[in-house]
């Protein structure tokens, strides 16, 4: 595992700070994630090719594309979850609030506290509902007003009404949709700035899916949401921007969601969106 410790000394930190200033002037404070020529390799295989992307703050950005197009890989670059895969290698520049995410002074553990993640299959810990939400707060040592913080997170994830009288019950007793909202609450409890969602509704039934979609739209008022989905209708319903990745890990098009779905530039994206392949 290559979880870099903070080994760099003062000068590089100063460099990083001066870069922050420049970036805010050049790309504006609206952009929270900026990818420049990001490529990812798993061993010899290239999973992502020179991706250029700017993701705006407090909006929902959807990433769509056929299976194996690298959309999840890109998502996992943002919070450095790819570090956990031994063979993965990331090239290019990826900036979060102007700081290079792969810079030597960045601790992936600290980064992940600000960039939360919700996974494809609901993965609550085998603990009580309360302990699931409190987990992140406890490991970060923020145990003051724990009850209030847990309740607030559950409320923001639209789950509190359903579970308020059974917080000590096992999280595994909840339905799939409730479990996924619990995972969202667990992620919200530590106050991240960005929430990455990797096909969060693909394992759920239509009713649970629509609840998650409503929730995502309301989350965008406070958070930046980046969601990977293979459901194009879902992307069209909930996102402000859409990035279309096509086979080979190449970003084919990135624009406002309406433009992508009504008048895409490239023929390949139009073919994909109209269901001619993928």
């Amino acid at each position: 595992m290559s979880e870099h410790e903070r080994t760099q000394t003062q000068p590089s930190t100063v460099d990083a700070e001066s870069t922050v200033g420049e970036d805010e002037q050049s790309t504006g404070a609206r952009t929270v994630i900026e990818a420049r020529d990001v490529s990812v390799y798993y061993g010899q295989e290239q999973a992502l090719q020179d991706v250029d992307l700017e993701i705006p703050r407090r909006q929902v950005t959807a990433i769509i594309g056929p299976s194996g197009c690298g959309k999840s890989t890109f998502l996992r670059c943002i919070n450095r979850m790819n570090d956990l895969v031994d063979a993965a290698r990331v090239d290019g520049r990826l900036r979060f609030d102007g700081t290079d995410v792969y810079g030597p002074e960045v601790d992936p553990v600290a980064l992940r506290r600000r960039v939360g993640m919700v996974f494809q299959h609901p993965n609550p810990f085998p603990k009580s509902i309360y302990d699931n939400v409190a987990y992140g707060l406890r490991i970060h040592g923020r145990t003051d007003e724990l009850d209030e913080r847990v309740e607030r997170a559950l409320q923001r994830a639209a789950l509190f009404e359903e579970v308020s009288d059974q917080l000590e019950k096992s999280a595994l007793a909840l339905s799939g949709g409730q479990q996924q909202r619990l995972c969202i609450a667990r992620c919200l409890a530590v106050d991240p700035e960005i929430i990455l969602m990797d096909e969060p509704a693909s394992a759920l039934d239509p009713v649970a899916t629509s609840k998650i979609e409503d929730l995502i739209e309301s989350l965008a008022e406070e958070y930046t949401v980046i969601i990977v989905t293979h459901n194009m209708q879902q992307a069209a319903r909930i996102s402000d921007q859409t990035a279309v990745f096509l086979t080979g890990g190449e970003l084919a098009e990135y624009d406002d969601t309406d433009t992508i779905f009504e008048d895409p530039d490239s023929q390949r994206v139009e073919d994909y969106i109209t269901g001619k392949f993928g």
Partner: protein
Amino acid sequence: MSKRSTPTEGNGVPPAAGQSPATELQRSEFVVRKERLYGWLIASCAVLTILVTVGIIAALSGKAIVFWTEISPVTFFTGTEWSPIINNAYGVLPLVSGTLIVTLCSALIALPIGLAAAIYLSEYASERARSVLKPALEILAGVPTVIYGYMALVYITPLFQGVLPLSVQLVPPSIPLVPEFTLTVPALQTFNVLSASIVVGIMIIPMVSSISEDALRAVPDSLRQAGYGLGSTKFDVSTKIVVPAATSGIVASYVLAISRAIGETMAVTMAMGMSPQMPHFPNVLDNLAVSSQTITAAMVQIAGADSLGHGPTYEAMFALGLTLFCITLSMNMMAELIRRHFREVYE
């Protein structure tokens, strides 16, 4: 084995794709009988293990009851002296205490080290480190126990004898008003509980680590991902997510290891000697320094004595065996209860 009646009209019609002719839906008599024979064979193997267990209990109980008609069970279970050959004293308490002290001390050594090793192997070790360490642990498990006893006697005891006795002043004399308190670790006898506990502890580490490691590896990776996604360090993920999720397996490994420590014979007989002791109070460290005897070692002693085959001393062996069996049985039942408790909470 359900035999379905099959329509005969389909016969002779060439089968369409995905359909079989009706006759093939019936099993031939031969296959049915073969299946039944295999079923019986497997079942009889299962029954055999149960019969052996029942037989052991019956044999133990039979002789033990003969023993208890000669020596009253009250004397046996409350007596504080075990000296069957010289004094005709059959009090089992010193042996139970010897067994429990060795088991407790070896568990104190093996359970934390074994779990830590399991966490390392499952969560931290690279594939290469695992491929070296796993077989090494299995070799440790394969060392004959008599060699452990020998090691205790020849190496570990002299090592400690070089250091002990030891007096450590816990409260510095400069602090006023606090009574002076000195921790005294006594000198070791040639046969002693300490080195026996250490080798039994080492002996059961592989059991704890290998079963616990299986339990830790069975924890789904999605839980680790969730932990990392929330900004956990590797240590947080290992200790606060993976270990709690594997609790039932870890408890199972602990119980198996403790049962093994209770039943361990050769190493404790060699390292601890044969002088039954009631526990020493209040300086509990004395318990580790002296020679003592476990239930198993007492049985070895009786089995090696001249009285084999007759008399209360011989029959005492069966009473001891039954006592030992009851202790391990209650351990296993306790483990099952603990496991069930965690199951209810987490599944």
